[in-house]
């Protein structure tokens, strides 16, 4: 298990995503309402570029004819056949127990903290004052 710096916190606005290749895997990083989540870019159904689907909300209803859209920006919808996944957990919305896309632990750290130690930050120079997103693989 290693940790990789994959983005600067302020480069990814709320609702946006970023695709990175790290440790041989294609991973998408999402900013959901200010929190960061990372999932694999391969749909467990037939293998589409999952993270290139639309980020959508959830349609809910308690009684016929009354609908509401909730959880805006929390689900990603596969561009091939429309399966929906919860970005926070990687679980399929309809079949959470059996179907999920791999999700990765994400944390945020100050450049200053990252600068201590024998490592080289990844694709971009790390500056002491800024915040970075780190994924664990």
């Amino acid at each position, binding site marked *: 298990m290693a940790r990789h710096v994959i983005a600067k916190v302020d480069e990814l606005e709320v609702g946006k995503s970023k695709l990175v290749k790290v440790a041989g895997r294609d991973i*998408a990083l999402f900013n959901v309402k200010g929190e960061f989540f990372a999932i694999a870019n391969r749909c467990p159904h037939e293998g589409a570029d999952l993270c290139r689907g639309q980020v959508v909300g959830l349609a809910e209803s308690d009684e016929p004819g009354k609908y509401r859209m909730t959880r805006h920006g929390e689900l990603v919808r596969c*561009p091939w*056949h429309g399966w929906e996944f919860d970005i926070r957990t990687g679980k399929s919305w309809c079949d959470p127990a059996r179907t999920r896309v791999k999700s990765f632990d994400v944390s945020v750290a100050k450049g200053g903290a990252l600068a201590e130690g024998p490592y080289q930050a990844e694709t971009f120079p790390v500056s002491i004052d800024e915040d970075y997103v780190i994924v664990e693989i």
Partner: protein
Amino acid sequence: MDISNKDRARELPVQQIDVFTDTRDILAHANRAAKKRGFEDWLICDVDAHHTETISWHELVQYIEDPVIRHQAMLFHDEKMGTASYGLNGDMGLKYQDVGGRIPHQAGIREKVDDGVHRDVTLSRRAMSALGVDYMVLFPTPMLTLGLHPQPEMEVYLGRAYNRWLIDKVLSKDDRLKTLAYLPFNVPKEAERTIEEFSGQPGVIGFCVPSVRHKAVHHNDYMRIYAMLEERNLPIAFHAAYHWQDQSLATINRFLGMHALGFVWCNMVHMTNWILNGIPERFPKLKSIWVESGLAWIPFLMQRLDDQYLMRPSEAPQLKKLPSEYMRENCWYTTQPMETVNMKALQLTLEMINAESQLLFASDWPHFDFDLPQEIYDLPFLSEQAKRNILGLNAAKLFNLDPTPRKTL
């Protein structure tokens, strides 16, 4: 903090897939999957893929034979704006296949197409190379409901125009593209003329009856059609669709329900009539193909018809064996949309239909529920030979195609 530096993160270009995305980009992962599985050496025939013929409707209407109708149709397309295609009877706005714009390749394909051939040739080639397909059988899309048209002659005009246009603009440009040519089944004499005229034309490997229609497939008027096809050794396909004006489905209020039932119901009715009226006994060499109804309906109908037949054989005196035996020996099925949630049920289904010889892979690209060849390849319970047969060799045999793979991946 221990931060790895040996596997550096590399930013990839990320762009949401939308209606402007190139087919090869949408299907990039399919192509990777095909390479990984070594499909280079596998013959893969896609027996049901689509194009949207209405995008070229202004072109297609020029192929209408009747000069008055042709004139009307051409004026209609020159002068009207924002209108549906001349003469079609689709259910207009009730086209929810793309889940309200959420599945872009179903919503519309607006990618750049500029290599000097017809767009449908280019788009089909892109899909074939991405999916790893050697031969692709193209079907129209909105025309699949013409069987319910209130003017039966319109099916004749448009069906013929479609066949002529498709051969001229698309099939004669690439011999890997094929058609089961449109049969105007509401007018049997015209259907006979269609068989006479189009058999043997470039890319024509059989004929297709769009299944949505209230016509009895066992009516005597059709027997000559079946005899003609049997003599020519050309299969007849029943391509399913749905129509909200079909009264038997009129209460359904969700597209999901309409799609689940509509695409199966029309073929269940035709199959029941086909078998119980002994068509396979009367035309034992006629090959029928049941297209785009998935597979889960077949075991149900086999069980049901066998069960009833045993109690009432006198009502189907032409039969010399069980209905399910005809369904297994005289009928072929395309895979898509293959129901895979219950794998045990799928396995039993494939056994019951003798998939090793009767099943034909179909992608249904670019529709919302398309399947990849890997769906067959990855099944844990099939032998390699069975997989090769389903993915291509059964189709090669049925349509008399050279089984040598033609694609480059």
